[in-house]
Structure formats: structure tokens, C-alpha cells
């Protein structure tokens, strides 16, 4: 008998912290959308199914793409997630029997669960990123050569677009262009695939990991010490100190590049974190110490809450924490190249916690 994890209303707070940690400073505001999940869930429960539970089924990955800030301003109508799933199934001519998340980090760590309630289908505990990543061509399916099309995009104005026979990098551009001309964000549903095929190139147990991380985090309490943070979250504290500089400069590609610098109050080490939509690279005294796909998180020194990139201000007291990223990405050079620093235009090799120790 396979043990089925269960998510109830009381788990939502931990889940939010978990997906924020997996968000690595990006991935959107999970806390706001968590209210939608709380309301939709009520006293009910969501089973977090393993692939084995749903081995015969057909699964659709679903989530939100586009501008995170606009998502808060232009609120969802509630139709988008289900609308996208239905549209892609209609186009593919396949009936889905389960849904899964597009990405586990940030907002989309919650949207997959809401979609499962909206369409009334079981939730497969898996996603295509294992953390937050900014681009559609960084979905594990795309990296492993599975098609991302046909896929359906449902924007909050009610318009539905179905893309088919489009390569991942072109899909990325097409979706961005469409969204920039419409509501700024939309619900995206990828093609329905048989569960074994889907999970052959997906990261499983992602939402469970978020939940575990969040539950562990809840033990930290106020103003935790560095070694407690390392022990409880299973990572490494790079700095415990004050933010001396937050800068946003120029566009490296589609997204604004920036950097955040923290001086460790004890060692006086200068820890600089290069940012795009997520924290990408940490330099300690100018030496590259940790990079994507490992997770970099800035925690509020007092509450230990993860701080998103746009929440950090000069003068904040923070902990800079590196957590191991999804091991799936580090399994071979090909995957690492797709999400390592060079995929963001940062000209350095990936530096991971495991590989270094």
C-alpha cells in the first residue's frame, strides 16, 4: 500500500513557506494565492498522489505564467486554471485524469492544487522544475525533449489561445508576446500525457518537499541561530548580517538584472547575490560559492520568513541561506546547462552545495 500524503487547511501556512523557499526569491507571491486555496479547500483535503497511485492515468501540468505583479492587480476570475486544462484536453482529444504543477517554487506551488480542486481531478505530486525558474524552455519536459505543445493559455479576459507544433524557445517568446498584449498573465496547461511518460521527465514529490521544508521551517521560531537554520533546513548559511546594497541594473535578457549585497556581521565577509527573477548566484568575497539550480534564500533575520527579491531593502538584517536544489537537475551536464548560471548569461560554471563538499 502506497502511503498517500494529504494536504489540509492547517498545512497551508507551512506549504506557503515551503514553496517560497523553493522559489529562491522569485516565483511570485504564494501567500496571496494561498487564500484562494484555503477558501476552495475549506474543511476538505487534497491527496498528494505518487506516480504509482495514478500509473494508468493521463496528467495535465497546469499553472500560471506571465507577470507576477500584474497577477496581484488583475485578479483571477476563477475560470482560468480549469479553462486552460479543458481547452488543452479538447484540442488533444484526450481526457485528463489528473493534474500536476508546472513549477513547485512560488505561486505555482499553490496553483496546481487549486486547479485540482477546480477541475475535480486527483493531484499528482510532481512538477517540471522542482523550484522556481523563469522560462518555459526550462521545463524539465523541454530539457528532456518532450514536446510542450499542444498547450492552452487562458488569459483573465477570457481569451483562450492554443499553441501547437511550437518549439519550447519559440513557445516562450510567443507566450510572452501574447501576454504583454493582453492581461499580463494567464493560466497555462501543457499537453495531457500518460503518467509514466509525464513523470519520466518530471520532478516527483515536489509539493511534499515544499511541505516538509515549510514544516521544518516552522520549528525555527524567532531570530534563529545560523547553525539551527543549517540543521533544520539542511543547507548552508552564507551570511548573517545587513544588506548594504540593493541594485537593479539593466536587462540581461528578458528580465531585469540586479544584485544584493550582504555583509556578514561576524566575519565581515562580503556576500553578493546576483539576481534576475530569482537569486541566481552567490559570491562570497568575490568567489562564486553557490549557483543555480541550488536554492538561494534571504530570510528575515527576526522572523526567518523568506524574502522575495523585490522585498529586500538596504539596511535589512537577513540570513543568506543556500539550500540544495532539486537533485534531478544535477544528474547530468545537459540538464545542468539548461538551468545553470550560463543559462542566465552568467559566465561561470554551476557551483552546487553537494558537488563542492
Amino acid at each position, binding site marked *: 500500500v502506497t502511503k498517500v500524503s494529504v494536504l489540509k487547511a492547517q498545512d497551508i501556512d507551512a506549504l506557503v513557506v515551503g514553496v517560497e523557499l523553493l522559489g529562491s526569491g522569485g516565483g511570485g507571491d504564494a501567500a496571496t494565492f494561498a487564500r484562494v486555496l484555503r477558501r476552495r479547500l475549506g474543511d476538505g483535503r487534497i491527496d498528494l498522489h505518487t506516480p504509482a497511485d495514478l500509473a494508468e492515468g493521463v496528467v495535465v501540468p497546469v499553472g500560471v505564467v506571465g507577470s507576477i505583479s500584474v497577477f496581484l492587480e488583475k485578479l483571477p476570475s476563477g475560470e482560468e486554471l480549469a479553462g486552460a486544462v479543458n481547452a488543452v484536453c479538447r484540442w488533444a482529444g484526450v481526457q485528463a485524469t489528473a493534474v500536476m504543477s508546472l513549477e513547485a517554487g512560488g505561486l505555482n506551488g499553490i496553483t496546481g492544487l487549486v486547479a485540482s480542486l477546480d477541475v475535480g481531478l486527483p493531484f499528482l505530486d510532481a512538477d517540471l522544475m522542482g523550484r522556481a525558474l523563469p522560462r518555459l524552455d526550462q521545463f524539465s519536459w523541454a530539457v528532456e525533449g518532450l514536446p510542450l505543445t499542444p498547450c492552452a493559455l487562458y488569459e483573465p479576459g477570457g481569451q483562450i489561445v492554443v499553441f501547437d507544433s511550437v518549439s519550447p524557445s519559440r513557445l516562450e517568446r510567443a507566450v510572452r508576446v501574447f501576454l504583454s498584449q493582453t492581461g499580463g498573465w494567464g493560466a497555462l496547461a501543457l499537453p495531457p500525457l500518460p503518467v509514466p511518460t509525464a513523470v519520466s521527465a518530471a520532478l516527483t514529490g515536489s509539493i511534499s518537499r515544499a511541505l516538509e521544508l515549510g514544516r521544518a521551517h516552522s520549528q525555527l521560531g524567532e531570530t534563529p541561530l545560523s547553525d539551527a537554520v543549517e540543521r533544520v533546513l539542511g543547507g548552508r548559511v552564507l551570511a548573517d548580517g545587513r544588506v*548594504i546594497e540593493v541594485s537593479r*541594473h539593466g536587462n540581461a535578457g528578458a528580465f531585469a538584472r540586479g544584485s544584493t*549585497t550582504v*555583509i556578514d556581521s561576524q566575519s565581515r565577509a*562580503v556576500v*553578493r547575490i*546576483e539576481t534576475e527573477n530569482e537569486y541566481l548566484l552567490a559570491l562570497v568575497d*568575490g568567489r562564486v560559492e553557490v549557483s543555480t539550480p541550488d536554492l538561494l534564500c534571504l530570510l528575515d533575520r527576526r522572523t526567518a520568513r523568506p524574502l522575495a527579491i523585490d522585498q529586500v531593502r538596504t539596511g535589512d538584517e537577513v540570513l543568506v541561506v543556500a539550500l540544495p536544489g532539486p537533485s534531478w537537475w544535477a544528474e547530468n551536464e545537459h540538464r545542468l546547462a539548461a538551468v545553470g548560471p550560463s543559462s542566465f548569461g552568467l559566465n561561470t560554471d554551476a557551483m552546487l552545495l553537494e558537488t563542492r563538499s
Partner: protein
Amino acid sequence: VNATSGIWLGAMISHPQWIRVRRLAGADQDVDIKAANLIRDVGSDLGAGPGSLLAVMYSADRDDWRLDSLLNRAHTIGVAAVMIEDESPVRRSTHALADRLKLPVLGSPDIVGSYQAVQHILAQPRVIMADLVLRVLTAGRQSGPSVDAALEAISAALGRPTALVDVHGTLLGGVFDGDVEALAGALARESTQDFGAREVGLHDGVLAIVCPVHSAGTSAWITTLIPRELPTESHAIGSALMAASAALEQRLADARLHLERDARQRASLLGEIVQGSISDASRRRALDLGWQLDGWHTGIRIGVAPGVDLAGRRSEVVRTLAAAGLDPVVVEHGDGYAAWLSCTQEPSAKQVQDTAAALRSAQHHLFTTLSTHMGVGRVHPGPEGIGQSLSEARDAAQLARSRPESGRFLHVDRLGLAQLLLAWTRTDTFQPAAHALLAPLQRQPGDLINTLAAYLDSESSLADTAAILGIHRNTVSSRIARIESLLGVDLSVPDDRLALHLACRTSIMT
């Protein structure tokens, strides 16, 4: 110069060829630069060794995280300093990192030029010396005839402020923005007899390169200030200063020639004026020199110690008088200077007094440098008045010379005339005569000399004398009688009375 010895970064920062290089971050501490390496950009392989200056050609982007990474790499292999493109400030993170690594980060708008300057200094000290000497020689040849013009051109050629100072460190020309006292102290230990330039340390690593300059028997120093020693540069400047000193000596000799010629002209014209035979041609020459012959004149005689270079020091005298608010004609004359002030109206007593006060203060200053004594004549009108007043001034000056208590200054006004007379009575011939005259009164009972003096002072009045001395009238009368009998004189004879009066004054005052 040892080509393998390094350059201190602090010295290089103040070098003229690094004028636009700025310290952007990193410790203020100094580092020794032993080599220089030029790399393409912040991502390039360093190819540098310990102690080198790492110049990064394309490194203007202050946001690039690879700049921080470069600092780390440079620090790891012991690079002395990193130079990046343009002078804009670096991000705080880079600043904090450079401070932490104690790695100076410099900004230069011309990376290649700044790099080459270091390379030259490190590798080709002889070339730099030859280049500098040649530039100073050219500057010396091409600049104007004055010492100041030459100094300015030499400063420009050296890229360092350069000055001419006398042996006491007093600025004679050019620019010296260092510690004058430290320079004076350092120069006091150097001999101008030794040919050639030398380095003298002033304070806090500031260095003056000095080279003697000789002219008409006096010596001065040409001095170039270097904020921090850079051996290659200071050696080159030393050689260049030898070339500069030759250029200055030539100009000083020229200036001297003009000075002597002018002095001779003035002296001959003054001779004519004093003799009272002023030709039309002389009037014309006086006009050319700006001398006012008509009006009222006050003659001033400034005597100096023997051996003073009259022509050479004239400007100093003029300067000192000007500082006291006076603008007299000053002419080298005999063993000093003849000078006079002219005005169109007869000056009031107050004006005369003010002028005398100003001259007295000028004398006070001149005495400290030239050991002068000064006599001032009365105001006389017309061209011949110049000669008259000067003649009085000359007599007064002669007296002033032996009178340190009056500041070696004497003004022939009314009071002055009396002093003149009295002073005359104190000559070597009169004093013994006075004592001899009064000798019979010495050692007699009843204070006869003071009684006689009081009697003569009070116009031969017995009553007044008694009141002055506080004795009875009859006592005075009997003393006078005794005096007349002891001296064998008749006090009603004016000549006897005058002689005795003068003798009393002399006797009482000595």
C-alpha cells in the same frame, strides 16, 4: 636607478602622468608595484604575478559581478592593485570587497596610457631622464627673458611646481606649495658650493629636489617638490634641474646687467641734482625715471653696512618702504641709498609726523636684514630742496648710526635739531673739554655742577634755582659766587654762559 625596484602606488598616484587616475576603493595603505599587466576584460585570465598592477581594458560596467570575482582572483595571486576603466565610482559591494581584501582599485579614463606610464617608469628610467632633461633644456631656451617665465616653463616641462628660493628658503620666484620651514631647515644643511642636484626630505615622505643657482656672488636654490618619492622620477628631475639652473643663471646674469646699468644712470642723475646744475636733458631723464623735481621734498638717507650689494638689494629696500606705505625715489649712492619723497603742496606738521613714523617702521624692518641706519631731512621746496634735505638727512644718518636707542633712526625736525646739537657736544673732542672746564667744581662741597646747571636753565634766576633745588635763595647766591671764583668766569658774559651751559648738559647726561 635599479630597474627591478618597485614603485610606491602613492607616488605613482601623484605622478603627472597619472593625473587622472583615481582611487575608487580599497585600503589607503600604500603598496609596492613591481610589474604591470594589461588584460582585456574582467573575465580574462590574469596572467599577472604578485605585486603587479593589473590594468583591465574593458571594465567600465560597474554592475558586472565579474568585477568582484576579478578582485577575488587578483587578491588570491597577490596582485598589488587593480586598475579599471573610467573614474566613475564602483558599487558599494565592490567597495566593501576591495576594502576587505585590502586591494586598491583605481579608475583611469585611459587604461592603456596609465599602464604604459607605469611600464616606462619600471623599465626605462634612463629614457625618462633623457626625455625630461631635453624638455627642460628646450623650455629654458624657449621661455621669456625673465626668471619667472623660465621657472614657469620649467615647471610645465617637469610637470611639477618649481621655485627659486634663497639660501634661507625664502621664495624668490615660481611656486612652492610645501612646508617653507622644513625646506629652510633642509637647505641649511646643504652647501651651495657642491655642484649638482640633490634630494632633501622635508616631512611625511615629501621630497624636494634642489640644485644650486649662482649669480653675482650669491647663491640660491632651484627647488622642485615631489609629494612622494618615485626614484626614477626624482633622479630624472635632479638631472633636469641642473639644466634648469644653467638657464636661470643666464637670466639672473642678464637681470643683473640691467640692474647695474640702471643704478649707474640713477646715481649720475642724482649727482647733478645734488650739485644744483640741472640741465634740460637731465630734467628729461628725471621725467623718464618718474622723478618729481618740483614741489616739496623730504630727503632720506639709508646707510648700510659695508659690502652690501647696493644694486642687488635695492628692490628689497623699495619693497620695505612700499610696505610702510611710502613710495620714494631710491638711488644707490655712496655707501647706502639716497631717497626722497616728493609732494606738490607743502606738507602739514601732521603729515611730516606721519611720514616720519612710517619711515621709522621701515627702518625697523630694514635693520633686521640690511643693518641699516636712517636719517631724514626737513622738508625743502624745489629741485635744490632735494639736495638740501638729503644733506640734512646724511648728517642725521651719521648720528643715527651710533644711536641704537633710537632705533638707528633720526629725523631732523625741530626737536631733532636740538638733538643734533647736543649730539655734537657729545663728540670725542667736546666731552673731555667739558669735563676739564667743570673740573674745578668737582669734589667741592655743595653740589656745584647741578646748581650751575639749574641756574643757567632758569635764566640766571636765583629764586627759580632755589625753588628747583629746594634750598635757600642765599645759598644759591653764595654757591654762584663760589662757582664764579672757582672757575674764574663771569656768568653775565653770554659766551661763557653758553660754554658752561653746554658743558653742564654734557656732564650731567654722561
